Structures are given as structure tokens and as C-alpha cells.
């Protein structure tokens, strides 16, 4: 018995009331527990639209505590028009099943909830309010939106992928068309040096079907008749080459270029381009043969003219007056130039025919240069050009070269310096030595060579625009020949030039110990 309970006599009725009260308290606890347990937000709303009861889930969903929300109008948590319609329908129909509403939360945000309601009636079956349960759709809505977004993104990706695939397909078709129809032969080796692709032109060069050589390694390919020559030429590592000639057969000369292909530093394979130069080579050969023939044919009459003129000039044919002598001298010089030109043409023809043989001997390069200087020194003096031959002491610089041809190179350089350096200009012939090489350098302060002309200076028959104005008689063969001579000595020839300031031509050859 509680100390707060009256200490009077407990009659039977009081005992029953006490029991009922205990039962009621238990029932109350049960109702409270049930209500509090429900994970579903529930509230009870009076017909007047006042919230009279909420459970903890509802407090959590709305953000309002029980204190803050009980006794408040339902408009505080729902949009008036929306909840009014639900209330009306509930009180009329007894319930509303799944309707979407906006729940206005304490923090000012709102979320979409699905509500369902059921009226509570009194003993006369009159509604005394209604329970409202709600289900927060925010996460579902968010997921739905996210799914829509992902779906849209996926569709976009799919479209992009399809577009990319289509473009790749187009590119592939284009590339294939280019490869198939390419005028040059193309070979593509993969990163393992297996032949991955061969185009019809290349098949045609070697008279072999692509299926017989593709997907094969270098070791197998080297033994394929005809094709093996190319593989041997490229070497076991498929070295990079640029426009190197390769004679496959008597009537097939290919210009071969091979490059290793990389993308973002990743090695992908090697591409070999085969350009058929057989026809050009044949035309070139015929041309050279013609030039050689013509030059030979011209040399005999030109020599006859030379000696006839010499005899006249020397007075062997009788005395000639001064005026006649001057004319004959000019004719003689022109004939000399003609002979020089013919000789140059013959040399070029020999070079191109591969008949320009080098006969190297051990010799002093200073001596070679001195000889060239001796033949031209007077001409510098006559023109008034200050020429200096700079040597450091008398110690010879021994080289292993063809004396005659190297002198021709030095002569050519000095001759050019003389031609393109104006009166009172300066020309120097000097040497630069390293432990293994010697460089002969001819420096002038003449007209120089324009940037546009510089790349073609060593080309056959090329004459720089300024040079042609200053000296119309040049053949454009001197430097071409000089380059060929130095190349055949495995040397290096080059120049530096600035228009209006002069040029420096040099060649380098190995020293002989």
C-alpha cells in the first residue's frame, strides 16, 4: 500500500477500483510504448486542425519537439490547402490512403511525405479527429532523382560512346582506305616486331600475298624471298631510317623510311614506308649518261678550239694587233670556262654513276690547301681582296685523302669567296684541329647567303639569288661536287652565313696519325 493512499478500510469496491487502476496504468504504459516504438511518424489531429498527439518518430521527422508542436495548428507542419483537403476527405470518408504532401520542418526545409489517415470515432460513431501517419519520401525522391540523373548521364555516356564508336569506325575506314590506296608501300610492325599490316602496294613490290607475311616475326620474314632483303636492311631492331635507297631488283629501287611510333611515350610499333624510285633512278641514269656523253663529245672540239686560240694568241699564226688580241683573249677565257663547265659536268656524271673513285693517300692537308691557294692567290690580288692563309707553324697536318679531289674542294671554296667578296673585302683560309679531326675553313665578308637559299646551297645546279646577280657565269655545280667529295671521305661539310656580312664554308676530315 502506498503511503499516499488513504489508510481507511478497503472495501471490495475499492479493491476492484485499485485493480482497475493498476490495469489502466499497465495499459497506459503499453499504449505509450507502442506509440513511442513505432518507427512511423504518427500524429493525432483534432477536427479543429490542432495537433493533439505526436510520437517520437514524428518529432524526428518534423524537427519539432512534442512541447513545440502539440496544441499547434496543423498548418504549422503542412501547407494549409494540402492538409485541408486531406482533413476534409478523412473526416468524410474515414480514411485517406497514400497521398503526397510537403512536410514543413522546423529548420525551414521541407520534404515530400506520403501520408495516410484514419479517423477516430466516439461512442456515437462521430469522428473526434484523425490519426495521420507519414512516410518520408525524401530519400526515395532523392534516390529517384539520383537514378534519373544517373540514367541521363548513362544515356549521355552511351550516346557519346556510340558517337565515339561511329567516329572511330569512320576513322578506321578512312585509315584503311588511305592505307589500301596509298601510292607507297606501307608496312606496320607491332611492338613485338611482328608484321601487323601490309598494304596492297607493298604486296605488289614483293610479289607476295599479305597473308603469307602478316603476323610473322622478323626471323621468319628474313627468309621470305624478296622480302628478306628489306628485313635485312632494316636490321633486327627495325632501325629508324629516312629515305634510304634499297635496290630490291634490277628494275625495282625503293626509297625506304622507317620510324618507330610512340604515343605518350608508349612504344606502339614501327611504320615502314616504301617509295618506288625506280623510274626516277632510270631517268636520272639516262640523264647522267647523256650528260656524260655530251660532255665527252664537247671536250674534244673545245680542246681543239683552246689550242687553236692559244696558237693565234702566241703569234704562231702571224702577228695580230692589240684589238684582235683582246678579242681573242676574251674568246680564250670563255672557252676555258666552257672546258671547266664540261669537266664539272663530267665529274658530276661520274659521281652519279658511281664512277667517281677516291684514291686516298696519307698526305699533308696544309700542302693541299697551299697548292689551291697558289692557283688563286693572284686573282685575289688582282681583284683587290685581302686574302690571308693562316697556319700555325710549319707542322704538317696529316690526313688520308684523295689529294686531287680535296684540292678541288678547297679551290671551289676559295673561288666562291673570291667571286662573292667585293673589292677591298677580306678572305681567310684557316685550320681548326681537334685530337682526331681537322677542319678547313674559308671565311669571307662577302655578300652572304639569304635564309631562304641556305637549305639548297649544296644542291645540284643551284645558284643563290644574290650570287647569280653578282656572278652570272657560275654553274651551280661546285658545292654539289664538293659535298660529294667530302661525303665520300666520310667527312662533314657545312657553312654559316649572314646576308650582307659574309659566309664561312668549312669541311672536316679525320686526321691520320
Amino acid at each position, binding site marked *: 500500500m502506498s503511503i499516499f493512499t488513504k489508510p481507511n478500510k478497503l472495501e471490495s469496491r475499492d479493491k476492484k477500483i485499485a485493480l482497475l487502476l493498476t490495469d489502466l496504468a499497465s495499459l497506459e504504459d503499453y499504449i505509450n510504448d507502442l506509440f513511442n516504438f513505432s518507427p512511423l511518424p504518427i500524429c493525432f489531429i*483534432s477536427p*479543429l486542425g490542432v495537433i493533439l498527439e505526436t510520437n517520437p518518430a514524428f518529432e524526428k521527422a518534423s524537427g519539432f519537439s512534442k*512541447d513545440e508542436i502539440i*496544441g499547434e495548428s496543423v498548418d504549422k507542419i503542412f501547407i494549409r490547402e494540402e492538409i485541408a483537403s486531406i482533413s476534409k476527405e478523412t473526416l468524410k470518408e474515414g480514411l485517406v490512403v497514400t497521398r503526397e504532401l510537403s512536410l514543413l520542418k522546423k529548420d525551414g526545409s521541407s520534404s515530400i511525405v506520403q501520408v495516410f489517415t484514419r479517423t477516430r470515432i466516439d461512442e456515437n460513431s462521430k469522428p473526434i*479527429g484523425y490519426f495521420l501517419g507519414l512516410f518520408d519520401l525524401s530519400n526515395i525522391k532523392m534516390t529517384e532523382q539520383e537514378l534519373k540523373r544517373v540514367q541521363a548521364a548513362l544515356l549521355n555516356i552511351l550516346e557519346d560512346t556510340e558517337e565515339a564508336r561511329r567516329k572511330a569506325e569512320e576513322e578506321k575506314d578512312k585509315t584503311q582506305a588511305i592505307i589500301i590506296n596509298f601510292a607507297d608501300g606501307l608496312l606496320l610492325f607491332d611492338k613485338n616486331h611482328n608484321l601487323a599490316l601490309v598494304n596492297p602496294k607493298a604486296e605488289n613490290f614483293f610479289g607476295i600475298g599479305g597473308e603469307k607475311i602478316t603476323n610473322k616475326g622478323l626471323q621468319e620474314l628474313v627468309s621470305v624471298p624478296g622480302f628478306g632483303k628489306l628485313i635485312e636492311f632494316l636490321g633486327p631492331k627495325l632501325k629508324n631510317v629516312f629515305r634510304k635507297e634499297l635496290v630490291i631488283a634490277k628494275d625495282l629501287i625503293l626509297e625506304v623510311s622507317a620510324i618507330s611510333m610512340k604515343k605518350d611515350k608508349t612504344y606502339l610499333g614501327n611504320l615502314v614506308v616504301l617509295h618506288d624510285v625506280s623510274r626516277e633512278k632510270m631517268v636520272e641514269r639516262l640523264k647522267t649518261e647523256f650528260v656524260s656523253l655530251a660532255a665527252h663529245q664537247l671536250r674534244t672540239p673545245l680542246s681543239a678550239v683552246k689550242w687553236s686560240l692559244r696558237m693565234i694568241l702566241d703569234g704562231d699564226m702571224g702577228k695580230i694587233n692589240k684589238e684582235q688580241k683582246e678579242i681573242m683573249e676574251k674568246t680564250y677565257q670563255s672557252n676555258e670556262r666552257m672546258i671547266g663547265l664540261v669537266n664539272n659536268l663530267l665529274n658530276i656524271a661520274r659521281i652519279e654513276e658511281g664512277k667517281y673513285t677516291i684514291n686516298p693517300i696519307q698526305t699533308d692537308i696544309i700542302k693541299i690547301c697551299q697548292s689551291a691557294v697558289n692557283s688563286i692567290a693572284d686573282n685575289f690580288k688582282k681583284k683587290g681582296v685581302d686574302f690571308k692563309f693562316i697556319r700555325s707553324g710549319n707542322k704538317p697536318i696529316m690526313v688520308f685523302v684523295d689529294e686531287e679531289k680535296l684540292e678541288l674542294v678547297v679551290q671551289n671554296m676559295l673561288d666562291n669567296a673570291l667571286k662573292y667578296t667585293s673589292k677591298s673585302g677580306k678572305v681567310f683560309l684557316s685550320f681548326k684541329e681537334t685530337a682526331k679531326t681537322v677542319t678547313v675553313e674559308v671565311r669571307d665578308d662577302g655578300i652572304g647567303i639569304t635564309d631562304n637559299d641556305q637549305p639548297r646551297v649544296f644542291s645540284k645546279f643551284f645558284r643563290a639569288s644574290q650570287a647569280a646577280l653578282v656572278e652570272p657565269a657560275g654553274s651551280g655545280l661546285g658545292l654539289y661536287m664538293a659535298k660529294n667529295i667530302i661525303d665520300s671521305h666520310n667527312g662533314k661539310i657545312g657553312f654559316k652565313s649572314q646576308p650582307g656580312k659574309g659566309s664561312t664554308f668549312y669541311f672536316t676530315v679525320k686526321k691520320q696519325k
Partner: protein
Amino acid sequence: MEIEKITREKAKQLMSIPGEARGVTLKVDWEFILKKEGKNGLKRLEDKMVELGYPLKYEGIKTMDFYPIGLDALSMMAISEVFGYGKEKFIEIGKTAPKLSIFLKIFLKYFVSAEKAINESALMWRRHYSVGDLTITEFNKDKGYIVLRLENFKLHKLYCYNLLGYFSKITEMIVGESVSAEERKCVFDGDDYHEYFLKWK
């Protein structure tokens, strides 16, 4: 308002007031303390009750059971002394009471309209208290006010504040609007009864 120091003598005196109240009236007050002051606060209140010779425990309060009405007043004085609560706090406690009361669930059927609730107010009072008579002397829906009279009920002034809050909140719940409340007459001011004026609109 000066906090009245409670003594065992005063406690005894309050406990001797005739009449009973349902446990819910105590329970909601103590729930308020639990919310505002936490478990420690509740413990302090329980200790105070032990000190006064009436060892009431929060968990032991049965909402449906009947307790001496003086215990309500004693509990309020203990709250006032332990936490320094005055008029405003007791009005707040009163306003919170309907929200936490299990009886609200029982009385839901009277909240369908103001008229219905007013008609049932005396019955609702009796469900809480065995003493005191509550009547509605005026109800003007158009002008928005109610005048309540409470007779034969004299516990403690703190209780008047508590009822002021309680009546104002209940009125808000039945009219759906915010209500201002005033105790116009009080037995502790020499009047014969308590009179509460509740106004909305």
C-alpha cells in the same frame, strides 16, 4: 516573487488538505523537470521530497491513481525551492501539462469543438480532482473569450499560476488560436473563488 522556504511543518500542513488528485497532475510536472533539469534535477527533487518526509519517486507515480491533493502543492513548493522557479515557470509548467498528459488521450473526444469541450470542462476537472468546482461563467465565441470560475479550491498560489498556464493551453487546443490568460480573481487575494479570463482573436 520571493521563493518560499518549505518546512516539514508546512509539508505536513499541505498534506492535510482534504481532497485527491490523479497522479497525472504530478507526473506532468515532474516530466517537465526531467526535460528541463535532466535526471540530476529530478534526483534533487526526489531528495527534497525525502527530506520533507514524503519520498515520492518519479517512476512510482501512477498517472491514473489518486493522490492526496496536498502532494501536488507540496511538489510545486519543492520545485520552486530546488530550482528557484517562480510565476512564469509555473505558467510554463501548466502550459506543458496538457501536451504530456495521458488524460488528453481520454479527453480527445471533447476536443471536436470549443462548445463540446466547454460543456465537458466540469467533468474533465472532476476526472482530475475530487475537490474544487469548475464552471464556465461566460463563453463568447464571436468576441473570443471564456471566463472560468473555480470554487472550493485552495492549495497554494503556485498552483494558481500552474492552472493559468494549463487553462490557456487547453483553450488554445480547442479554439486553434493563441490565447492570453489572466487570473482575475483569486482566493489568495481575498476573493471567494478563482476566476480566469481567457482571450483569443
